């Protein structure tokens, strides 16, 4: 990230090659629109380029920053679209093409290994906590949307989201000492 902050285009391109597929997958899932996902991906990387200097790596990992950026922007876009339009998009969506990913092989292996770790950790959560956590984080649903969709009280959804993430964090940390992302 420091190299990117210094204006190193190759470092930036590497960052793109390493993470764009993960981020794009997340954006597609939240936005259900390739066009919007492409726009947001571009915005995210532009922001990274511009803010790399102010990114403080003692405060968090680069991956976390990228994912959080991408997710925030996607949710922002999502909320700008009304719920009927959103539902229409969800049903109209074509299945995304299988990842003919240009991911460098090393990155693919590493990602896949981490995916296993996270899935394993998720499996330790009670079913209801896992579900609401994924709906909230990966699908970008608001707490009240989740409550409506699952017919649960809002308070229950919040409690489960909170407990689910706390548990995930504990399990990850105990499995890996420090989860190196």
């Amino acid at each position, binding site marked *: 990230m420091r190299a990117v902050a210094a*204006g190193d*285009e190759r470092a*930036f391109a590497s960052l*793109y*090659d390493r993470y*764009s*597929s*993960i981020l*794009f*997958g*997340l954006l597609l899932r939240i936005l259900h629109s390739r066009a919007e996902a*492409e726009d947001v*991906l*571009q915005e995210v*990387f*532009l922001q990274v*380029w*511009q803010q790399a*200097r*102010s990114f*403080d790596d003692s*405060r*968090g*990992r680069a991956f*976390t*920053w990228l*994912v*959080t950026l991408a997710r*925030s922007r996607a*949710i*922002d*876009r999502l*909320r*700008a679209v009304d719920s009927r339009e959103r539902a229409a998009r969800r049903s109209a969506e074509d299945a*995304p093409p299988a*990842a*003919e*990913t*240009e*991911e460098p092989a090393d990155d693919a292996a590493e990602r896949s290994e981490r*995916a296993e*770790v*996270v899935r394993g950790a998720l499996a330790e959560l009670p079913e209801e906590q896992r579900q609401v*956590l994924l709906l909230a*984080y*990966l699908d970008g649903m*608001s*707490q*009240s949307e989740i409550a409506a969709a699952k017919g649960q009280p*809002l308070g229950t959804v*919040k409690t489960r*989201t*909170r*407990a689910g*993430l706390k548990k995930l*964090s504990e399990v*990850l*940390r105990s499995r890996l000492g420090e*989860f190196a*992302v």
Partner: protein
Amino acid sequence: MRHEDYKELLALEAAGALDAGERGALGEHLSSCVECRTELRELSEAAASLAYTLAPVAPPAHLRARILESVRAVSPSEARAVDPSEVAATGAAIGDGPNLRPAPGGENADDWRAVIKRFSLWQLLAASPSLSFGAAVAAVALVLLGATTLFTWNRTRTLQGEVARLSKHLKESQAESARESEQVASMREQLARAGELNEVLASPDARVEGLAGKDVAPQARALVAYDHSTGRTALVASGLPPAPEGKAYQLWLIADKKPMPGGTFKTDSDGRARISDRLPPGVGKPAFAVTLEREGGETAPKGEMYLLSNAS
């Protein structure tokens, strides 16, 4: 809210599940609580790791080319001028979610609630938004003075207007609930404290620098506005430990690595300080530092450094 109550909000924030009201309240708390910031970081990392479980999808090749092309045109870490379309987009986010009601005067694109809603708190902590996300973000950062890693921007006339407008908006808005009125009152207070800052900002030659705490006071933050044509300076700081008896903090203007002495100050009971000062004018790329010196100040820095601008 008790500390326990704030802690309860952390996991929801990291999961992206807080509404703007709760997020504003939590943001304030974070400005003075290292324990919660640390926990928020851990929870945010766990949340972000969920992204690994998704199947990656390669974006189209032309997008890569377009993105690389577009950054070539921009020098990295350059503060862009305010982009009106981005500011407008923020406004569109208002009014969604269970506990939110549209802000009074709804289409105010710079409503601070919309801004807080848009950025996760962890994001604000880890990497400061630049002016490219709208002057309202600058105003929010002023409010969350301790929570954000501050930022440098080239002042445009818009900023002064926006800070003034935000201040007016707060004065006029009806408190919709006890919790909101608490937040509004607190923001009003902080904006009043930043009033001197605002005056310096009135000059087209003003620059604002963010200062971050050194190891001795990692939670300390400050904003310094410096008018290079007159040397008029304003500083707003938070998170500084009280200066011991006989000592005071001193501001330094650093030009070409040479520190020039500014005024001395002490913090209030909240660990906050604001001063206005006159420093030597004419420094094009100013950097700033705050050290702890004896009460009368020094001509060259001798004491421990507490704050240093990010640009150094």
